[in-house]
């Protein structure tokens, strides 16, 4: 929907009339998006939802019933819209101020009424606290980092600081928050689609380098699960920026069918101290002294337990068996060159390393073995033979579909505390993830 409206508005800008066909479930989001794009009167033709599950003959009927309205949208002159917001104005370089009550509970209700919270209590972003947050960076408050899709809010350092205060961050966390926001603004992250998809993608922030230990960003016990101040508040600050600057909220343009709790907050560090290998950031060419964030929108966390096998290969076999199942949404989207995150707990990582695997060998093993026979996917939503051309030989009845296009797409980290539980996380649809260096 996000990009459908975008394409149609581009067409209108080029001087050709266009119509966007939308099911009723997306009617409100499409209206909001058309307004953001500056063309609220762009014709949308609304059809019944859903279309995807209909029989062929029903789809033809729906199309026939919509045809006259589509023709009208292309050929009938449009009445000019009289919306009050139909004026041009740039976002102010300095965020507007407003007064709210100093009573904590009543102040929180005032912020909720504006739609600015994620439903949990926030710290009101007072001028004083925002100024303190800004002291955590050398970046100027008015610096523009970009525009957050799909709402296209201008992202200034000051706006990010206000959201970081609300999330509960300490000023020393702020460089990590800024790096995370810069990461999702990279084009390959597709932050607008991430917000609008029915696929329920949430950004996870992986921190590497010495800053993690310095700030207490945990890569150890319970590191995915919140309940650790730095992890919880940094992840939440990013999500509040996506909500308040990008419009990613369920009564706005967020359209996840179900979503998952990573939409509240998900940030953890690589457990570099207990990893038998060099850190992810070093593998990707950064100096060990440099701290980075790697942010990927994922569909969920898939856990696996292996407490019986004691050889590294045995652990890897259980891991790839977990990744190799028909219900995984990544197989029909891997051609978009999206990654999968594999987070090995320290005990599993140690056993795998002892068996002679370095990072490259682990990634090669997973790429070779995490494959589903194409025949098992056939007829399912995860079957995408057109997209697999050159990657899967459909003429081979035993052809297997890899989980990612190549081993480089496997993001391997060591994370977690004691115990024998690892996890993998499939990236969402088109999100290739993004890495940013954390700048003080």
């Amino acid at each position: 929907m996000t990009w459908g409206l975008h394409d149609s508005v581009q067409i209108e800008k080029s001087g050709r009339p266009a119509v966007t066909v939308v099911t009723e479930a997306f009617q409100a989001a499409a209206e909001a998006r058309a307004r953001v794009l500056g063309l609220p009167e762009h014709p949308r033709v609304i059809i019944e939802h859903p279309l995807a599950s209909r029989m062929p003959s029903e789809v033809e009927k729906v199309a026939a019933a919509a045809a006259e309205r589509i023709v009208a949208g292309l050929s009938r002159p449009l009445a000019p819209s009289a919306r009050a917001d139909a004026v041009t104005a740039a976002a102010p370089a300095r965020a507007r101020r407003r007064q709210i009550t100093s009573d904590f509970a009543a102040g929180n209700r005032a912020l909720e009424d504006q739609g600015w919270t994620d439903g949990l209590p926030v710290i009101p972003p007072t001028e004083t606290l925002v100024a303190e947050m800004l002291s955590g960076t050398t970046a100027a408050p008015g610096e523009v980092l970009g525009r957050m899709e799909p709402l296209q809010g201008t992202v200034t350092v000051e706006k990010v600081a206000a959201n970081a205060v609300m999330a509960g961050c300490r000023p020393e966390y702020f460089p990590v928050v800024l790096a995370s926001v810069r990461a999702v603004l990279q084009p390959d992250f597709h932050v607008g689609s991430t917000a609008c998809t029915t696929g329920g993608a949430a950004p996870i922030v992986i921190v590497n380098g010495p800053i993690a230990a310095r700030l207490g960003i945990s890569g150890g016990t319970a590191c995915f699960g919140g309940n650790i101040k730095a992890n919880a508040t940094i992840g939440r600050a990013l999500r509040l920026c996506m909500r308040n600057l990008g419009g990613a909220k369920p009564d706005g343009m967020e359209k996840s069918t179900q979503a998952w709790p990573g939409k509240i907050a998900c940030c953890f560090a690589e457990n570099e101290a207990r990893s038998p290998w060099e850190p992810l950031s070093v593998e990707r060419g950064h100096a060990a002294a440099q701290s980075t964030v790697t942010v990927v929108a994922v569909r969920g966390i898939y856990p696996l337990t292996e407490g019986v096998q004691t050889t590294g290969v045995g652990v890897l076999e259980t891991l790839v068996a977990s990744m190799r199942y028909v219900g995984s949404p990544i197989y029909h989207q891997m051609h978009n060159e999206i990654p999968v995150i594999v987070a090995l707990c320290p005990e599993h990582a140690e056993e795998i390393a002892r068996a002679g695997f370095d990072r490259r060998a682990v990634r090669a093993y997973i790429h070779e073995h995490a494959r589903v026979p194409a025949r098992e996917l056939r007829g399912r939503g995860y079957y995408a033979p057109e997209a697999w051309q050159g990657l899967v030989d459909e003429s081979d009845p035993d052809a297997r579909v890899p989980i990612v296009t190549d081993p480089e797409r496997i993001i391997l980290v060591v994370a977690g505390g004691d115990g024998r539980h690892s996890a993998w996380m499939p990236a969402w649809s088109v999100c290739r993830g993004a890495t940013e260096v954390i700048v003080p």
Partner: protein
Amino acid sequence: MHGDEVTIVNPAAEDVTERLAPARRVASLAGARVALIDNSKHNADRFLDTLATLLVRDHGVAKIERYRKVSASVPTPPETLRRLLEASDAAVHGVAD
């Protein structure tokens, strides 16, 4: 500031959208060339197949240009869009589902 109030910094977008003018509509589709952009959602192709048939049969559309996106979650590449528009007088995008 009153004693019982605090000043907060607006954390949300304050941008006001630049307003665009919609394109002039075609007087009639008779003889027109129409681009159909398929967002690749399931059944979008079938919907547009039927639409193409009706546009030609009932409305005299002279030519249909088709393009299928690799994913509904990405824009049509600018070069592809340019090529489509050079060959078309109007366009339909579907189906957001």
